[in-house]
């Protein structure tokens, strides 16, 4: 589909390039990304003469090469293809000829409009960039038309653009964008370029093949962990397994016997081993006898963390939303109350944390990694080195799983600290899986408490209190206002149902010792889980069908009703099922999309959960690449179900007890049912999709288990002993 793209990966392999003896990281980096090169956005290396670069996203050169610069990073969510489709749509580019590039760090040019900095997260790439990208494309198109009209001395309104050409219909003349590049670069960008009527879309809404897939099926895709530099050393690290601990003593006697082990570096809080290759470094690390000074966290345990959370959550929180008169509402009606608790989770991206660094004589450095926050990596490393930001060159890569883990710059900072102990040689620091799992920023433990009062068969009063860590307060301090974490309460304040009297409270409780971070699905995961489980418990007590009960409280939510109706139909909702088989529903508003999911599951006598079928109906507004929406929901649901069934990081002696996939389990192919995703066509503004499946899976499965067994699970992960009757349910 994309000749230019094919050409770019058909170039000599990176290894041949290294063997050719070309020195210098920047040149090498030209071969690191799959899309042909990281350069300054408006400085194409191949042809600087007569290029048309009307904005940070688009470059067209005289040879007709159209380069689209990606402000958001590709971590599997298909965003490179969607962004290219939006730009090419309004630009009327020849889509088959476009080439994509990773954006360099530059908040001004590529900052996410939602955050003001370069961030790929919160399922908002399309939501935040929909208008800016369309405008960028339309502006460039208008300038190309203007240039052609001048050349022909005709009115621009008689000219039209398509497939990389401008045509004047009346005189039947055509000029390619390549031929117009020089002249268009002299045009002034129009102030408010007209955007296309969605009815005119040629690309948007039509399934397009992803740009990144070909290189990912033949091994040529380059992730951060694949960066290779001439003369590069390999390193692996171990930070204090007890959070906050320090290195006390390192005995490297045995490590010195490891062939290829070069150097042991003891830093304040971690030890690095340098080797000829990762294997030598890892074997060297394993052979070290490290004595740690565990510090004050050495006694922190899981029990203590939960006791702290429960004790703190009993205190008054901050009112985040108040509607009607909750106090009065609770004076009458039938009362309901439940508490839900969610565990720490690790990200476990398939590509372990890694970063390659070369320090420069000017005090700066060059960095290769895959990151969701390229400008933050640049800025935090510059601060560490005491240089200006421009002295830190960051090359972004395809990401082997982000899920929020790569919203942190820690892997870059650690790698730079290792590089500072070398003599200027480039070093690739790769974490072992064990290190990756034990030095994560964990999805926080949450405690969600809901009370409701029911009158006339409907919820008349609703009190919901969320207690947990505020990731926002650490990660984006200006967004943490008045003691309220807007992420943790996202779908508590923006929930689907017509509750006439509602109060949402937030209580910030930081767990002792354990660092917390964003995790795919973020705040809505805890909100939607608690709300949807609670609604099912109320429905059952009232002897109402879970979907009918939800619909009775959705008079103001036609889009919610529509996805519920669709998923009910597709899942054969209400049709009889066998013994210990149930269907569970989840309705969610998160990330600007309207999603209803039904999972059918069976629970055997041993408590084993068998996933039988998943149906999901989604109204995500205007959809750019429909197949991406389907893929993200299929995968996201599995991501969420993995957590529901197995996900739990536990702490003992101040350290994480899990280490690898044998004790932090993943769902595997033999457990996966059919997952059918049904898109509701809509002309509304685009919604987010990358995180939504992770949110949808757990409550739908939990409610299916509730329907199958009558057991209202209120903690995750799902406890098989409870389902088998060997243990009482936690309440």
């Amino acid at each position, binding site marked *: 589909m994309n000749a230019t793209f094919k050409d770019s990966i058909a170039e000599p392999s*990176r*290894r041949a390039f*290294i063997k050719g003896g070309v020195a210098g990281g920047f040149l090498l980096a030209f071969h690191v990304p799959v899309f042909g090169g990281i350069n300054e956005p408006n400085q194409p290396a191949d042809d600087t003469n007569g290029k048309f670069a009307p904005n940070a996203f688009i470059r067209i050169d005289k040879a007709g090469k159209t380069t689209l610069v990606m402000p958001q990073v590709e971590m*599997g969510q298909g965003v490179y293809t969607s962004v290219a489709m939006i730009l090419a749509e309004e630009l009327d580019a020849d889509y088959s000829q476009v080439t994509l590039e990773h954006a360099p760090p530059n908040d001004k040019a590529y900052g996410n409009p939602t955050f003001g900095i370069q961030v790929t997260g919160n399922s908002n790439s399309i939501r935040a960039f929909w208008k800016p990208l369309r405008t960028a494309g339309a502006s460039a198109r208008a300038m190309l038309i203007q240039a052609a009209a001048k050349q022909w001395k005709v009115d621009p309104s008689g000219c039209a653009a398509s497939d990389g050409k401008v045509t004047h219909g009346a005189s039947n003349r055509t000029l390619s964008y390549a031929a117009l590049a020089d002249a268009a670069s002299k045009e002034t960008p129009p102030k408010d370029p007209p955007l296309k009527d969605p009815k005119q879309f040629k690309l948007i809404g039509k399934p397009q*093949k*992803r740009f*990144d*897939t*070909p290189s*990912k*099926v*033949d*091994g*040529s895709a*380059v992730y951060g*962990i*694949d960066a*290779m530099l001439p003369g590069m050393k*390999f390193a692996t690290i171990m930070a204090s397994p007890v959070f906050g601990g320090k290195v006390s003593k390192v005995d490297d006697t045995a490590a010195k016997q490891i*062939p*290829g082990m070069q150097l042991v570096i003891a830093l304040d809080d971690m030890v690095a081993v340098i080797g*000829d*290759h*990762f*294997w*030598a470094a890892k074997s060297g690390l394993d052979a070290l006898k490290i004595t740690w000074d565990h510090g004050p966290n050495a006694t922190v345990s899981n029990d203590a963390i939960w006791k702290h959370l429960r004790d703190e959550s009993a205190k008054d929180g901050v009112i985040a939303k108040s509607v009607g008169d909750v106090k009065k509402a609770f004076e009458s009606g039938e009362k309901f109350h439940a508490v839900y608790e969610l565990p720490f989770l690790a990200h*476990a*991206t*398939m*590509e*372990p944390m890694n970063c390659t660094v070369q320090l420069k004589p000017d005090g700066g450095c060059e960095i290769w990694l895959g990151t969701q926050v390229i400008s933050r990596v640049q800025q935090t490393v510059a601060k560490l080195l005491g240089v200006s930001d421009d002295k830190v060159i960051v090359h972004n890569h*395809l990401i*082997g*799983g*982000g*899920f929020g883990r790569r919203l942190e710059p820690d892997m870059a900072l650690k790698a730079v600290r290792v590089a500072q102990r070398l003599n200027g040689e480039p070093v690739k620091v*790769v974490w*072992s*899986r064990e290190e990756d799992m034990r030095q994560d920023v964990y999805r926080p433990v949450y405690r969600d408490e809901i009370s409701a009062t029911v009158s006339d068969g409907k919820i008349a009063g609703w009190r919901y209190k969320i207690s947990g860590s505020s990731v926002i307060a650490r990660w984006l301090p200006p967004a943490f206002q008045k003691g309220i974490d807007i992420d943790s309460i996202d779908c508590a304040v923006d929930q689907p149902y017509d509750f006439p009297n509602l109060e949402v409270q937030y209580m910030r409780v930081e767990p002792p010792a354990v660092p917390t971070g964003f995790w795919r699905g973020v705040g809505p995961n805890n909100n939607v889980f608690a709300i949807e489980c609670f609604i099912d418990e109320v429905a059952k007590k009232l002897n109402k069908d879970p979907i009918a009960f939800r619909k009775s409280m959705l008079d103001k939510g036609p889009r919610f009703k529509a996805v519920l109706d669709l998923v009910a139909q597709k899942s054969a909702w209400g049709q009889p099922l066998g013994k210990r088989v149930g269907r569970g529903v989840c309705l969610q508003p998160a990330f600007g999309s309207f999603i209803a999911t039904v999972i059918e599951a069976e629970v055997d006598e041993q408590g084993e959960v068998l996933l039988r079928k998943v149906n999901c109906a989604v109204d995500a507004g205007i959809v750019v690449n429909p*197949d991406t929406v389907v*893929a*993200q929901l*299929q*995968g*996201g*649901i*599995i*991501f969420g179900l*993995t957590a529901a069934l197995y996900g739990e990081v536990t702490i003992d002696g101040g350290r994480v007890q899990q280490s*690898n*996939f*044998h004790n932090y389990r*993943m*769902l*595997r*192919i*033999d457990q*996966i049912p059919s*997952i059918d995703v049904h898109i509701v066509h809509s002309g509304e503004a685009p919604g987010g999709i990358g995180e939504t*499946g992770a949110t949808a899976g757990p409550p739908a499965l939990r409610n299916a288990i509730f329907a199958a067994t009558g057991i209202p699970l209120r903690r995750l992960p799902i406890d098989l002993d409870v389902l088998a009757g060997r243990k009482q349910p936690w309440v």
Partner: protein
Amino acid sequence: MSQRQLKINGEDKTVDVPDNMPLLWVLRDVLGMTGTKYGCGIAQCGACTVHLDGRAIRSCQMPVSAVGSRAITTIEGIGKTPTGARIQKAWLDEEVVQCGYCQSGQIMSASALLATTPKPDDADINAAMAGNICRCGTYVRIRAAIKRAAEGEQPT
């Protein structure tokens, strides 16, 4: 440390590495063949899967000294085999891939399956592929792609 000959994707390579060094790191860090991925180092995830004489093995657990004269095939070379090429095409047609990091291993496991079991049923697919973790959850499409590759080109 000893010099040894390896036959990789039909080419002879000479490496000088410790005997107990896993093939994964010889491929990645010594030969620069980075298509084969490191995921867990304990044969739990399958990201490092390569073929020895056509059989799928986890290269993170295969000491280089145990390879012997067996032919090594990696993701960089699998497209030259008929089943590998069919699998890769099916992966494209089904648009299987998301982040892609595990997919080298998935494709190596799937092509080994197809070479011995031209028409795998669901149980065959489960048995051959359950050792390969995909964190993005592309399993539904992996199954569909294997079936598509097994059936040849499907009418669209």
